[in-house]
């Protein structure tokens, strides 16, 4: 167990960061959110195939890289830093984990395509699902196929395959319609997915794969939140050095200074808890891993939101404008704080995991 980054992890980070620096500047993302959909297919193809992030979690036997949660977490840090509009979390982590956990040959086939970057998948659950109390959905298997509506699905617009939990099983479908909602998070919108007698392939026979994948993904989401928080801190520190008021850089004012020191201290701890979750998850969802996931989410969700809020505030007026990218991070941070269990839900989980029982 180590909370540091290995050399391979650093190499992976460098590779992802180089691609993002090249193709995913703040201005590119800002321009893209003005269109119908923020997703950047070209960027995703480069990341997925050339850098190979699509198959990171997929075993080599199925055509993947056979890497672990630790590497996926590093990728998520960088994607969070860039609020990159690509379906890594939704396809290469969440959907992939459902399929890995399913372990069927049908799942294996889909995994091969995902790992190759040939297709992209999404899971038909609400992004707001609490991994500890995942609600059902109203999709039913009828004679002609699957029928139902699932709200607040992330990544569905760019998914070729949709994984749909139905009763005790998970089905894969390719026929579905997606209506993107006007979403708080401009760079990862949610959508309403509708199935109308859709033909499906059963990929998992247990009801466990989806909650398992939700908790696993929640643990890695902390690394995305870390990346968001880091960008906000770095950008604010840079601005505080350069912005002058009263003939001094605003970063020389103690009130600004001390708040940034406190924020840095929060981010230092966010890195520790996010790395810990990523590390613990290499062994699957043990109790220790569940504790690490809940801790990481309970810490990183508010820290990312706070970092983005401080970023807006300490930028003053410019931070309130659409043209400055700060708002993209604020919106992502706030949406992430709802995604896959709010901080309070994760604290609830810790009551059991850490032996802090609730009042009778």
């Amino acid at each position, binding site marked *: 167990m180590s909370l540091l980054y290995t050399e391979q992890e650093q190499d992976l980070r460098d590779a992802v960061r180089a691609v993002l620096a090249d193709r995913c500047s703040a201005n590119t993302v800002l321009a893209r959110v003005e269109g119908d959909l923020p997703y950047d297919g070209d960027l995703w193809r480069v990341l997925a195939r050339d850098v190979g992030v699509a198959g990171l979690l997929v075993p080599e036997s199925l055509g993947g890289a056979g890497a672990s949660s630790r590497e996926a977490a590093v990728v998520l840090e960088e994607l969070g830093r860039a609020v990159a509009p690509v379906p890594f979390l939704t396809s290469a982590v969440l959907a992939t984990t459902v399929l890995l956990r399913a372990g069927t040959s049908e799942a294996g086939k889909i995994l091969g395509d995902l790992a190759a970057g040939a297709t992209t998948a999404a899971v038909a659950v609400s992004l707001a699902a609490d991994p500890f109390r995942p609600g059902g959905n109203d999709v039913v298997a009828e004679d002609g196929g699957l029928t139902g509506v699932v709200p607040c699905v992330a990544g569905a617009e760019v998914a070729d395959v949709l994984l749909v939990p139905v009763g005790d099983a998970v089905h894969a479908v390719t026929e579905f319609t997606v209506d993107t909602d006007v979403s708080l998070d401009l760079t990862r919108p949610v959508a309403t997915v509708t199935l109308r007698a859709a033909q499906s392939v059963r990929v998992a026979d247990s009801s466990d794969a989806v909650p398992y994948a939700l908790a696993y993904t929640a643990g890695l989401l902390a690394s995305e939140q870390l990346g968001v928080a880091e960008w906000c801190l770095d950008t604010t520190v840079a601005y505080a050095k350069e912005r002058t008021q*009263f003939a*001094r850089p605003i970063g020389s004012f103690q009130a600004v200074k001390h708040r940034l020191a406190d924020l840095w201290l929060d981010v230092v701890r966010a890195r520790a808890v996010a790395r810990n979750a990523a590390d613990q998850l290499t062994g699957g969802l043990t109790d220790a891993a569940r504790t690490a996931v809940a801790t990481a989410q309970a810490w990183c969700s508010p820290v990312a939101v706070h970092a983005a809020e401080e970023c807006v505030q300490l930028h003053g007026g410019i931070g309130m404008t659409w043209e400055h990218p700060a708002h993209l991070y604020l919106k992502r941070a706030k949406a992430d704080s709802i995604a896959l269990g709010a901080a309070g839900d994760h604290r609830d989980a810790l009551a059991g995991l850490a032996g802090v029982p609730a009042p009778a």
Partner: protein
Amino acid sequence: MSTKLDATSARERVRAFVAAHRDVTDRVGFLRARFDAGLAWVHFPEGLGGLGASRDLQEVVDAEFAGTPQPDLGKQGVGLGMAAPTILACGTDAQRRRFLRPLWTGEEIWCQLFSEPGAGSDLAAVATRAVRDGDEWVVDGQKVWTSGAHHARWGILIARTDPDVPKHAGMTYFVCDMAAPGVEVRPLRQITGEAEFNEVFLSSVRLADDLRVGGVGEGWRVAQTTLMNERVAIGGEPVEPGGGPIGPVLETWRTRPDLRTHDLHRRLLALWVDAEATRLAAARFREQLAAGLPGPEGSAAKLAFSTLNQRLSGLDVELNREAGLRYDDWTFRRSDDVDMFGRDAGYRYLRAKGNSIEGGTSEILRTVIAERVLGLPPEPRTDKNVPWKGLPR
């Protein structure tokens, strides 16, 4: 008419006026008549919308005018709240006669051209230049966060007329003709998607010297008059416990029992207490004002309300969960006011972020409280006694 008005006679005078103008249904016509009767601002001089009466009587007069056509406090806010008192206090007679009446009636809308990209909290750092050219001034620069500039006929403007003296000494105050060539107004899109404010670009805008308010180099002093007349923000009207900004969150909480968790419950209860304490402090401040004891608590209200609004709307988005992941409308369009009750939690959350920046950042307000209320010593200043042009920017 030089005998001092008392509350009874003020009330009678208004009743008589209202009775006499019962038939005037045209808003502007009614307001013109009210101005001409000296009942716009009773403490203004006769002939300028007032009666030279005591300032206290305005409340009595306003109460009597309830139900009659009113000025538009939104669009006319800058004119009524900032331009009018400044022009009365620092303008020439000709300026008062020219500007006050259409300002009151709303026939001419005003905007404020103070903030610049490089002069936010440090307003005295304005870089917009005004250079004298005979009987005119030629103005070049950029202003920002100007609400209503696209409606405005006039703007109150501070510009630098002498870069060779310390920054507070080299500014001059003007009325800017928003219809003059070289004035360009562009909507400024905010993080909510819409544009409440504008950027105003001034390129070789020529202003006659009779649009100058106060002496050359006295702009900072005149601007202080403007800013001191900014209405004390005490968090709007008095509200009942559980009213005001906590209202929408409580509404969600009460109507959606399925969303409730113990975690959210404790946080909401704490915010309820915070909101109630803030509400009661505002109520106490209003009592002090009414008793003629304006205390320093007024300056605290904006600070308290901005924090509260931000925390409440933040909780609301989280409480809403799936609805919180959505947003009502990102359309880039102009908006003349802030809608904290009609729109969704996400809008309130984003819009409330501005509360701690606009009209004095929370950081500046804390410094003001510490220095003016608690009497703590100022920080060392390096920018007070050197020429503006030599300051780092």
